[in-house]
């Protein structure tokens, strides 16, 4: 086994993270830990710091305060990068190369266990892209791109997967397929950190961090969070914790509702989730 993870099972340990972009605090004193083998969700509205948090775990953002440890190493460390799979929020691939060529490229960058060609085919099968593998990325639809991007993040069999809104633009059916796949990877012992806006997805995580304005509102299993808030839905729970953080003034509505409405435009699966009525932010009291 790897010699670096001796003391505890924390795969990611972030302590007191602060990241400022000009006057904006993208991360504002964030502390959280993710254990080995967890499926950990990051739930928060636009601009709440999900991407910034993920990037600081990868080592692409240097926090102004605090530190991140990944697999026991302080980030950034060249030791961890080959063990992390990072799926960026927008499918970052080479447009003029085919899916297969993209995968081969990343395979050579990271190094793959076993034969590169075998691994590429394996990942292609995993995301159901085998028959489109010869298509240039430029010619792929949004959802197909997203799948190709996921394949690139999986290519080197990383033990920690960081997925930044992996299912945006993916149709509901494939979304289920992908989540089933995440479950399978998780069952194989991979740690997964996934950011999302979609409540149903969040509820499939073992634990969720509710984020707002770079701060942790609450953390726990979906059930714990709902029970703690006395809410029936994840969305209501989020609003409860948000208003609690605002000092209980229920008048100040969180932007999560706005976000929920915005994403329902593009997001087929959102239709089913119950968006709370306009004034219903503080319905628990």
């Amino acid at each position: 086994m790897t010699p670096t993870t001796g003391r505890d099972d924390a795969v990611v340990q972030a302590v007191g993270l602060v990241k400022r972009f000009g006057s904006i605090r993208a991360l504002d004193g964030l502390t959280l830990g993710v254990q080995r083998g967890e499926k950990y969700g990051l739930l928060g509205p636009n601009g709440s710091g999900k991407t910034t948090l993920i990037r600081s775990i990868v080592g692409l953002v240097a926090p102004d305060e605090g530190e991140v440890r990944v697999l026991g190493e302080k980030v950034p460390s060249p030791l961890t990068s080959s063990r992390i799979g990072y799926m960026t929020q927008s499918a970052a691939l080479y447009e003029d190369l085919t899916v297969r060529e993209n995968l081969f490229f990343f395979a050579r960058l990271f190094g793959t266990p076993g034969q590169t060609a075998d691994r590429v085919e394996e990942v292609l099968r995993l995301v159901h892209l085998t028959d489109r593998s010869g298509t240039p990325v430029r010619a792929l639809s949004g959802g197909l791109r997203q799948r190709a991007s996921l394949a690139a993040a999986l290519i080197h069999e990383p033990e920690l997967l960081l997925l930044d809104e992996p299912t945006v633009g993916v149709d509901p059916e494939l979304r289920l397929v992908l989540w089933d796949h995440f479950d399978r990877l998780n069952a194989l012992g991979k740690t997964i950190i996934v950011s999302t806006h979609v409540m149903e997805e969040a509820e499939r995580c073992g634990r969720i961090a509710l984020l707002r304005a770079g701060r942790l509102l609450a953390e726990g299993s979906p059930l714990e969070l709902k029970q703690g808030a006395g809410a029936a839905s994840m969305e209501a729970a989020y609003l409860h914790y948000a208003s609690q953080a605002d000092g209980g003034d229920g008048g100040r509505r969180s932007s999560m509702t706005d976000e929920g409405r915005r994403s329902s435009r593009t997001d087929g699966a959102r239709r089913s989730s119950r968006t709370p009525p306009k004034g219903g932010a503080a319905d628990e009291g």
Partner: protein
Amino acid sequence: MKGESTTRSGGGPSGHGRGMARGRPGSLRRTGAIAVRIITQFRRDPRTIALIFVAPVLVMSLLGYVITEKTTTLTVAVVRSDQGPVSLVPVLERVLEGKGFELSGVRDQDDLVARVREGEFRAGLIVGPGFSADIFSGRGAGSLRLVLEGSDAVLAADISRRFAQALQELPEALAATFLAPGAAPPTPPGQPVVDYVYGGPDLGALSYFAPGYVAFFAFFFTFLLTSVSFLRERASGTMERLLASPVQRSEIVVGYLVGFGVFALGQSLVILLFAVYALGVKLAGSLGTAFVVEASLVAVAVVMGIFFSFYARNELQVIQFIPIVIIPQIVLSGFITPLETMHEPLRWLALAMPMTYANEALRAVIIRGLGLGAVLPELAILGGFIALFTLLAARLIQRRIA
């Protein structure tokens, strides 16, 4: 950079652990992956390939055509007032026609000057009364007067150069006409003897400019293409992916060097061969040495392209580097005007530009036929530029992470 020295003993390639991703073999593999990727991307873009290989050839043929076009016939007014005894004017006119002048007789000197002034003729020739007598008695061609219109300095210079050449050939033509075959023609009196160390009077303008073109095209295309390519890497987010991978910054830069270098060197080879074999440019030195110089310049262009791409947010802003980075190099590198005739401050500026050294070295090889040893100082300076911009670019890559 950082990791290279520490592991090597790292337990071998067991699984996807830390040992495998670092050390030398991994470094080569990653650098190679980037280079291969760039080459594949190029292959997907036939228009850019055409631009790289066809555009310089087209432009050079055009320039070659324009430059050699100078020998087209030019009509010159002439006043023939020579008074013998035996008129040598027909011989003179034959020689002049051989130099591309067509002579059109006018009334007298005043008429000639007036018509040149009005722009009817670009030049006029006055054959004085004593022309033939002077030649016979060995007093030279002092009774000839050339009147130039002069508003086009290049044309005027060209006319007087051709005129001087004609005069130089005159004694030989006279000898052929009047003396027995085989007799030595008299040297024209008053003609200085000019010896060329390199080149010669028939070193065409194209041959003189060829080294500059080769340098310019290689730099121009390589710089722009690298810049745009690297910019896209940042804009599309693939840079994030690269930086999240075990790849080192130096490996990215070297991968780009190799990937773009392949095309840039192919381009240089095409330009050189085309210039030499199709356009008749004289290559005094070896192609190989010219190539080494070219390779160094191309490498400078790649690392400068990466460096400057950080200061552009989109492709349009890359285009803005043409007047900022490229044109000054063309103007100041000695491509157009020799460094020696520049004002002092400009000369200092020129010395800060990589193209100046490439130009100098390429001229030494192509025109003077010097070997690799003679251009080592220039190559060393180009190497310095490569090191400098590699460092700067690598620093920028790191800074943009944070």
